[in-house]
């Protein structure tokens, strides 16, 4: 068994080093160059792991415009009043000071794949031997008629962490008792599939715990069903009876338009004038990945499941929400998991480090009400076709309160764990 695997590994690293030979700069100038675009759960993890394990052989540069990172994961708990915004903010300092990652706080404006160069906003150019694309998502504003980036100032999406999250929180806090909230949920594939429904749970929790029992939340969903539906809906009935209404496309007949000037949301079924419209449009890979020609007609980037390399350019790895992760969801957990496979592949290519078969895992926890947390997860393996789910689990409607409370503690532990894994 051991011998077999070792032999397999020797075989793959031999292949990998031939690939690396085709990159002249690797041989010519000492350290190989890795550039990572995007400092989220995917990109920052790759940067840290490559720098930590192969820092002598590989120079790692992380390009991320934000000075510090506010996680999108757990932002719902901020909206629900379980955490402060600052609880979700993390510094990039340790990546530089502890692991020697060169963190550049700029945005990338273009990638020249032939020259293996990246242009930054200040006009400077970075050369790379390997590039990691982890730009996350871009929002397709025009997927909702009438919606736009400007409209998001009145009708926030809150689907990328930062000012949008704070704006959404302020608007939730301002909803009067008896006020109406309309959420337009996104179509698949989207970041954090259970996220919209946990968010609604958190809004309801906040309304209930601040004496706004007569508020109402309507979810206008383009999907026939949604993640953990069998757990969320009984939870809503139990804790927030009558407060949350989920409308499938069969009921609402589709979104006709939204109007930021009047605040109206029009469906085929009804016209709403909510106190808060939370519009989460369709999504695609981050702009830079699409502009670099790495995305397909779905708007996301196809990858080789064994290495996370782009199917269109073997010198580029793509991790996180921007890639097409097969059966994996778009989550921070998944991005972090993919990042470790990419980091191993990169170290194999550039530093001739031993490589092992790719492994992927994911778990998503969602809070429905205080101490009632549900989870869904799975493990995955690389196949020629895609990253394939091999096994999984989901919370049961019959779980005891103790199990659900334990899930919440587990989620808190996971958050501390993954953020330490990425940033410290």
């Amino acid at each position: 068994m051991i011998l077999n695997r070792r032999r397999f590994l020797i075989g793959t690293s031999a292949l990998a080093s031939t690939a690396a030979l085709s990159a002249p700069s690797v041989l010519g100038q000492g350290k190989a160059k890795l550039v990572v675009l995007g400092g989220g759960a995917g990109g920052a993890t790759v940067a840290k792991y490559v720098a930590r394990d192969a820092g002598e052989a590989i120079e790692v540069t992380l390009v991320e415009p934000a000075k510090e990172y506010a996680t999108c994961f757990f932002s719902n708990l901020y909206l629900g009043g379980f955490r402060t915004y600052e609880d979700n903010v993390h510094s990039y300092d340790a990546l530089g000071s502890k692991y020697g990652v060169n963190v550049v706080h700029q945005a990338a404006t273009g990638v020249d794949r032939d020259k293996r160069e990246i242009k930054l906003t200040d006009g400077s150019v970075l050369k790379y031997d390997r590039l990691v694309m982890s730009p996350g998502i871009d929002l397709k504003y025009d997927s909702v008629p009438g919606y736009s980036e400007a409209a998001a100032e009145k009708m926030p999406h809150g689907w990328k962490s930062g000012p949008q999250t704070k704006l959404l929180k302020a608007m939730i806090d301002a909803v009067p008792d008896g006020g109406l909230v309309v959420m337009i949920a996104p179509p698949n594939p989207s970041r954090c599939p259970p996220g919209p429904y946990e968010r609604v749970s958190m809004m309801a929790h906040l309304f209930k715990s601040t004496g706004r029992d007569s508020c109402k939340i309507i979810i206008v969903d383009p999907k026939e069903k949604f993640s953990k539906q069998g757990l969320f809906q009984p939870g809503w009935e139990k804790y927030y009876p009558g407060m949350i209404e989920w409308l499938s496309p069969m009921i609402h007949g589709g979104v006709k338009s939204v109007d930021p000037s009047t605040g109206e949301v029009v469906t085929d079924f009804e016209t709403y004038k909510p106190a808060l419209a939370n519009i989460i449009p369709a999504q695609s890979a981050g702009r830079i990945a699409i502009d670099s020609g790495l995305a397909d007609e779905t708007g996301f980037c196809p990858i080789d499941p064994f290495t996370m390399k782009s199917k269109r350019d073997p010198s580029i790895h793509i991790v996180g929400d921007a890639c097409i992760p097969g059966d994996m969801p778009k989550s921070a957990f998944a991005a972090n998991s993919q990042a470790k496979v990419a980091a191993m592949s990169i170290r194999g290519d550039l530093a001739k480090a031993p490589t092992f078969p790719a492994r992927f895992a994911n778990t998503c926890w969602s809070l429905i009400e205080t101490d009632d947390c549900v989870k869904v997860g799975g493990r995955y393996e690389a196949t020629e076709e895609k990253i394939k789910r091999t096994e999984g689990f989901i919370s049961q409607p019959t779980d005891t309160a103790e199990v659900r409370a334990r899930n919440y503690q587990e989620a808190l532990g996971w958050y501390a764990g993954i953020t330490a894994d990425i940033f410290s």
Partner: protein
Amino acid sequence: MTSDKRYNRRSFLKGTGIAAAATAVSWRASRAGEPDPAIVNLPDHSKYLGEGVQAHPYGSPSQYEANVIRRDVEWLTATRESSVNFTPIHDLDGIITPNGLAFERHHAGVAEIDPAQHRLMINGLVEKPLVFTMDDVKRFPRENRVYLLECAANSGMEWRGAQLNGCQFTDGMIHTLMYTGVPLKYVRETKPAWMGKRMRAIGFLLRLAAPMALVPGAGRTADIALGEYLAAECVTCHQLSGHSTGGIPSIVGMAEGLFIEALTAYKRGERDNDVMRNIAGRLSLEDMAALAAYFAAQGPRR
């Protein structure tokens, strides 16, 4: 002759019956002369045929001794494999513990050892290393010896106050067995190359080595590079710094044996956490040993 024998046995039985009745007299008197059914009724075993003599090719206890068994305490140890069961000392008479009731302590579950594959190897501080099969060993003269063996931790569960409800649990890590075996001196005499003074050291080393061999992963070098790669999956939740937050315990510095046992229990579905079952489900024993070695090396032993 036959009738004589029967008569004799009957009269013997009558004799004992009288003795029994004598102790029961006061009790019987209060029942207004009702006869004892245990004495006057013919029991089933006198009326019907019992099982054939070969019904149990390997002897098993009578149904009336069904309660005379070893027992363990589920919460006492982290897993059922690295655990102990206890001799039912309160139910035993005489000094020899039946083999099936002798307490057992294992660190990695019960090892099923095929005698045909078993080897006695003597190496290290010797001039000539030797290996014996079981058949080799059986060719030497045997000796029978009775030894009492008690776990050094027997009664330990009571040292900080009573917490178990019977002497089987508090003091049952003890048994007396008759061992049949071959003294090492015979082996030495047969192989003159052996140095007498070193024999004691070897005997000691053998005893030390035996329990270690039961721990999976011990005695071979786990693959640290593999462990480091696999660990990347663990540290998404379990912090490499050794800090513990919320419901996620630290696994840094964990003893390797415990680490492997815990993962095995998740893999078998004996421990209850979906995430851990999911992760452990695809770990081989080799993976677990590599992970255990990696995390054990990341911090002080806990």
